[in-house]
């Protein structure tokens, strides 16, 4: 009896883990793109995710818009935010050392977080949509509807981005730029303009990622550090710039989180996930720089 309960719990955990993993992939993609292609360590990435959550909240409370629609709206809005950030800030510090860029982006993090606290206070928020507690039962496994929708949106975006990078000439140019920036410039590619595109796309994924996270988890202006850690973990495990590897790493983190929460007491989950980070860094030996060599 005990074994059948455990088994169904485990299957439940696997399904949940895969769904969660898709969302983790989405929130990590931008970090992987900016680091892998532009060499920018965007520590402000998670504050952009947090802004995405608040965009969904505002659109829901003011206009009654479903977060599914907010996810669509977030794409152009955050693309524009990313382009502005790149043009006004990143492009000026990109030529300086990576440390300078890191400090500047940490400044961006502090500013966005501070502004968010002023605007929305530190209260925890949830998106109270009608289906927030709905669930589907398939073959004895209960799947939370918001989680399913969030995962579906994430999957669509991941596939779209992968297709864009693989099949379009712009996508190939972005991959070329990641592999050899000078050779790309010699071939006539305006790498400065492509960097705008890359940062815009990366920020758009962060924004949509924030919308779908808000469908699953409560949020406040200060809990984004967890997502920053999660995103870095996915990037370190999956390597840089490759969407497929990021997807595999994201699914892995999702699975580890849900499965280990079935097998061990809750407080061990973070411990296990961070242990994984340490082990990966030790095995790779070169940390983030080590994964950089396999951009795309």
């Amino acid at each position: 009896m005990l074994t059948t309960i455990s088994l169904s719990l485990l299957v439940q955990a696997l399904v949940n883990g895969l769904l969660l993993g898709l969302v983790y992939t989405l929130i990590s993609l931008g970090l992987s793109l900016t680091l892998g292609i532009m060499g920018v360590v965007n520590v402000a990435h998670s504050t952009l995710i947090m802004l995405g959550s608040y965009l969904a909240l505002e659109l829901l409370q003011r206009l009654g818009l479903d977060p599914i629609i907010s996810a669509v709206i977030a794409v152009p809005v955050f693309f524009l935010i990313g382009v502005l950030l790149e043009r006004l800030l990143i492009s000026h510090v990109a030529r300086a050392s990576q440390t300078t860029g890191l400090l500047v982006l940490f400044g961006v993090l502090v500013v966005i977080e501070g502004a968010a606290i002023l605007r929305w206070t530190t209260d925890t928020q949830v998106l109270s949509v009608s289906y927030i507690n709905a669930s589907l039962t398939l073959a004895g496994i209960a799947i939370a509807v918001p989680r399913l929708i969030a995962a579906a949106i994430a999957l669509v975006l991941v596939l779209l981005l992968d297709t864009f990078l693989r099949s379009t000439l712009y996508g190939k140019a972005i991959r070329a730029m990641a592999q050899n920036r000078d050779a790309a410039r010699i071939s006539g590619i305006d790498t400065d303009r492509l960097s705008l595109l890359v940062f815009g796309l990366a920020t758009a994924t962060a924004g949509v990622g924030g919308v779908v996270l808000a469908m699953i988890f409560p949020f406040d202006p200060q809990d984004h550090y967890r997502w920053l850690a999660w995103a870095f973990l996915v990037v370190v495990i999956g390597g840089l710039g490759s969407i497929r590897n990021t997807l595999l790493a994201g699914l892995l983190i999702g699975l580890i989180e849900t499965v280990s929460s079935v097998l061990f007491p809750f407080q061990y989950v973070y411990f296990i996930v961070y242990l994984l980070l340490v082990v990966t860094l030790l095995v790779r030996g070169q940390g983030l720089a080590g994964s950089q060599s396999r951009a795309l």
Partner: protein
Amino acid sequence: MMRHAADVPAGSGSPSPNGLTSSANAGLSMRGVTAGYYSHDLVLNNVSLIARPGKVTVLLGPNGSGKSTALRVLYGLLRPRSGQILLDGREITTVPPQRRLALGMALLPQGRSVFPELTVQENLEIGGWLLGRDRRRLAAALEAVYARYPLLKEWRQKQAGGLSGGQQRLVEIGRMMVADPRVILIDEPSVGLAPVIVDQVYEEIARLKEEQRTILLVDQNVRAAVALADYVYTLEYGRNNLEGERGAFEDRLEALIKSWLRF
């Protein structure tokens, strides 16, 4: 006739006394260029040279004499601290590298420069980036390159990074030729390649010469380079040293190489 740079007024703008062309403005030239990565460590010091139209100009010198830096400056990858770059008399000193291809220029960089995780075909497509919005012209340009280098067509679906060094060199040359450049800068074309491949690379450069393209070749393989040259410059310590037509250099190659080995 071979002359010492001391005989030529530095940065005079017309270091072209040999009648290879009637116009001092045609071709690609650098005038009085001073450049370096740090202000206290200049790699080029008041260097002038001309790559004449339809000719092969060779730039020689020992390691660290500034040859490759000269190419970087000529292609806009490094901005000079002073001096000018001119293409057919028009100043292009500050034109960024990504706009040089549209001017009919191309650079074959030193070492491996394929996009390793793109296929051969995709590498060529990047070479045709400027035609990108015109799919038909891009397809025609790729077909022309495949006709010119049939091996590339065989490898088109392979990842460029999985090819041998010599094969990658051919991909690099093919990628450059998609744009059908008039003025070609070549940096150390034979470094790191097997001797058989080296011969093929120089045969290809000879073909580019026959096609009347303007070529500036930087090379450590002095004999092979001089054999192709119409005109030769040498640099020492980042300054113009000797210059002259090929004939003036052929007899002196041994002495020249020996003197550089003592550096």
